[in-house]
């Protein structure tokens, strides 16, 4: 089976600093994969490079069996970190979810009532239908994260790239986000998340990629989450956790 994401010898430079160095990795179709690694390991940059948001210096990216370009990226939904936007924006939860439908609606065409009705079904899926009209600035961090998730769902993609979907949410929200991800997997979608909390990797994910500028290890979580791999990915900083 073709991997959902296949990256070969990817290099990305920010000025003179090399942030991804010959990174190669694969993420299997129909599974939930975590990308783990320390701060500054280039995890977010990796997903941004896959989405064409940062220029790549060299290397090859395949999405769902096709070279990554404008066309193949239409099958991919990207969920930025919640902190990437200013939530003091005049929009309701429903408005933000409807943004996931904009490409469907067509550029230059207005959002119609039926689009809002459709957007509402995605808010229902993340359990926020009753907050549809609430200004996003008045939502809690966890609710904002679920609004982002609903917007990603609205894109009806085959592959979902999520930057820290579990960051800064409470335990209940974390559980409900996990349920949604599992539901997506059950319908044959592929989910790849940048993830920070090493404690939960084995419980939440099928596969993991330990990453630091390049791939340290990848495969089923049990095989990746070994002290030796983590030591190599995190360096001396993980000594306490590993012991």
């Amino acid at each position, binding site marked *: 089976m073709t991997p959902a994401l296949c990256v070969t010898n990817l290099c990305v430079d920010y000025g003179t600093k090399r942030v991804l160095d010959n990174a190669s990795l694969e993420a299997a179709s129909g599974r939930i994969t975590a990308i783990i690694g320390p701060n500054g390991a280039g995890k977010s940059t990796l997903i941004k490079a896959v989405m064409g948001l940062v220029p790549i210096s060299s290397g090859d990216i395949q999405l769902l069996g096709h070279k990554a370009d404008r066309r193949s990226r239409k099958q991919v939904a990207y969920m930025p970190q919640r902190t990437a936007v200013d939530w003091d924006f*005049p929009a*309701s939860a429903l408005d933000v979810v409807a943004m996931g439908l904009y490409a469907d609606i067509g550029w230059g065409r207005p959002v119609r009532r039926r689009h809002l009705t459709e957007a509402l079904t995605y808010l229902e899926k993340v359990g926020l239908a009753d907050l549809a009209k609430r200004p996003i600035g008045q939502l809690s961090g966890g609710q904002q994260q679920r609004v982002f998730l609903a917007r990603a769902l609205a894109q009806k993609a085959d592959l979902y790239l999520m930057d820290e979907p579990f960051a800064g949410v409470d335990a209940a929200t974390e559980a409900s986000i996990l349920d949604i991800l599992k539901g997506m997997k059950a319908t044959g979608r592929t989910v790849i998340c940048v993830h920070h909390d090493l404690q939960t990797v084995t419980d939440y994910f099928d596969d993991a990629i330990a990453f630091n500028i390049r791939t340290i290890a990848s495969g089923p979580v049990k095989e990746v989450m070994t002290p030796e791999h983590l030591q190599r990915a995190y360096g001396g900083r993980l000594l306490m956790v590993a012991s």
Partner: protein
Amino acid sequence: MISYNTLIVLLGTGVLGIAAGLTGVFLLLRKRSLLSDAVSHATLPGIALGFLAALALGLDDGRHLPTLLIGAACSGIIGAGAVQWLKDHSRLSEDTAIGVILSSFFGLGIVLLSYIQTLGTGSRAGLDSFLLGQTAALTREEISVTAVMALTVIAAILILRKELTLLCFDPIFTAARGLSLRWLDMLLMALMLAVVCTGLKTVGLILVIALLIIPAATARLWTDRLSLMLILAPLTGGISAASGALISAYIAHMPAGAMIVLIAALFLAISFIIAPAHGLIHWRRRP
């Protein structure tokens, strides 16, 4: 009874106020309000050079509106480009770059205007009106240019409302969806430049920024819904512009720009006190 001429002036400035209000909402949400101040001040050298060019070409003793506007637009674009360049290629932050460009372009413009005065052609009076606006002296031609430009801006914003919203709320997501941030930002800048150039004759370049910022800020105080902001901002913008123009038409030597800005500011001040959710009274009452 309002004369036909006054009525035309009111309509022209009203439509300009509506266009400025709509554009201002997106400038405010994209946090680019102050850049419009740099651009509007940066139009002055272009106006002066346009005047000299028109004079050299023998068009209308220099006060040839299309040439002046093209000059204004060109130097406005150069000003905006210079702010961007300074920000990208130096360690200066955007607000510093704006301060530098705004004052130096404006200074250059004033020097050029003074030079034009020494030419002794006696037509500098026409250029003075670009500083503070002079609605009463607007010609029929100027009013139609204003109306056409403003209506174009309004139409563009209504058609691209969805895309501009996405750009302002979540630029990363916008780019991930395959839209070009560069083009969308340039479009927003173009709309702003169109409003600035259109407003030069009516509000004047020193205060045209107020027509972009204040109605949008007023609308933001009233609501957390973009759709409502896009009604309130053009509404207060249009009313301020038209009523300011009307008052200045009846009081001799009253610059229209200043009157328009004061009325817009009055709307803002009232909103600041009584607006629901974000207003002072409501805020005070909160536990």
